């Protein structure tokens, strides 16, 4: 099912010294089922806000999101693992009807052997992978990735990119990847949308299927 996003108006209220700010104004976007779409643009333009609106976490806007699937996997910028549950328990909690699959998902992201560790012992890269495993474990119809490679060293980021690319293609879910790096977008997506300006507009919307087909 196609996801149709229409944001007539989204305003960030004034906060501390910052004045109120129009983030989106008559913004619309359609995502075909199974499409892997990257959203690039400068920091603070509203990329994460867009994901929150699509996921239903932010309902404080004028507009609508239609066709959004029930099962969502969300890789937040911070891993948001529950520190008082082990890595395995963090997965089990989202798949209560098939907890035995948790270990297999952790193995998929290269965390076999770290199942019974508490998240505070993980490096950021490992925690991101655990968070990715959690997002994949629910077998989402919509996968939202919020800067999954930021704040990682180059080698770790590269490994994570390969992992995400593999998993995303295997999953065949509609996927939105938010990033500020073009090369990350190009490596992963079928389509790259570039946001710019305030309020944010789509300044470029390019398919990059040929690159994928050549692989």
């Amino acid at each position, binding site marked *: 099912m196609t996801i149709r996003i229409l944001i007539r108006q989204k305003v960030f209220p004034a906060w501390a010294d910052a004045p109120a700010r129009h983030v989106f104004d008559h913004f619309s976007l359609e995502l075909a089922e199974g499409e892997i779409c990257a959203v690039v643009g400068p920091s603070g333009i509203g990329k994460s806000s867009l994901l929150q609106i699509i*996921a*239903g*976490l932010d309902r404080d806007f004028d507009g609508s999101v239609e066709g959004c699937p*029930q099962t*969502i996997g*969300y890789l*937040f910028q*911070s891993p*948001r693992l*529950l*520190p*008082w*549950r082990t890595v395995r328990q963090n997965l089990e*909690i*989202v798949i*209560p009807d098939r907890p035995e699959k948790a270990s297999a998902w952790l193995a998929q992201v290269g965390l076999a052997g770290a199942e019974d560790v*508490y*998240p*505070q*012992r993980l490096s950021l890269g490992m925690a991101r992978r655990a968070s990715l495993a*959690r997002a994949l474990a*629910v077998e989402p119809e919509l996968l939202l990735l919020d800067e999954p490679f930021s704040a990682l060293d180059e080698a770790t980021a590269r490994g994570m990119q390969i992992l995400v690319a593999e998993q995303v293609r295997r999953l065949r879910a509609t996927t939105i990847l938010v990033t500020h790096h073009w090369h990350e977008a190009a490596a992963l997506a079928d389509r790259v949308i570039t946001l710019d300006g305030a309020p944010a507009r789509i300044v470029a919307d390019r398919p990059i299927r040929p690159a994928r087909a050549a692989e």
Partner: protein
Amino acid sequence: MRAADIRSGGGWQGLASVLLFIGLWQIGAAFADSRLLPGPGAVLNSLIGEARNGALFYHLGITLARVAVSFIIAMVIGTALGMALGLWRALDRWLNPWLVILLNVPALVVIILTYIWLGLVETALLVAVALNKIPNVAVTLREGARALDRDYAEMAQIYRLGPWTTLQDIIIPQLAPYLLAAARNGLALIWKIVLVVELLGRSNGVGFQLQSYFQLFDVPRVLAYAASFVACVLLIEFLIFAPFERRIDVWRR
């Protein structure tokens, strides 16, 4: 189990300081040589005497039961109230002044008024004790509720964890340190108040016994009851609170 807990709590110094205290007490009593300051031996004799004739266990049992019931009432109501205040600002603005008043009304006033209004009955005791404690629990848990992390709530919403799992795996673990603090302070406050309430209007319990022996100036028995009660509270600390604290701390590095 208990010995291990004492060791983990303070090492050998803990035990040594208790022995030192008993030693100083013995020396002080020997110097004073007065029936108003009996030594540890005399107190132990009184304790054994009261235990033999059954009075100790009867009154201690009744008092502990009262402490337990009023503790549970105060924790349940105080937690619910504190959560509500922490989550809804408007409610907090309305009820905060009441809370400040209740926090500062002397326990004795609450006790006297509940006895006057409800009569010298068991219910009055439980109400008086709970009323004294509920504001403390509510204030502590209000802080806990304010400290709840939105990030985890959003995660729970995305993965549709449901109300029960959200409560059990997301909210309670975040509140656990506040619950423990409220419970510890609560127990300390409640057992002191229960004794006063017993002293003022009940005809059994440790508070009543203390009152009787006070009138007889029987200091060894007063100290015997006090010591036995302190021992019970220490047992609760080591058998319930300390293990609970270790459990909630297990994930911290």
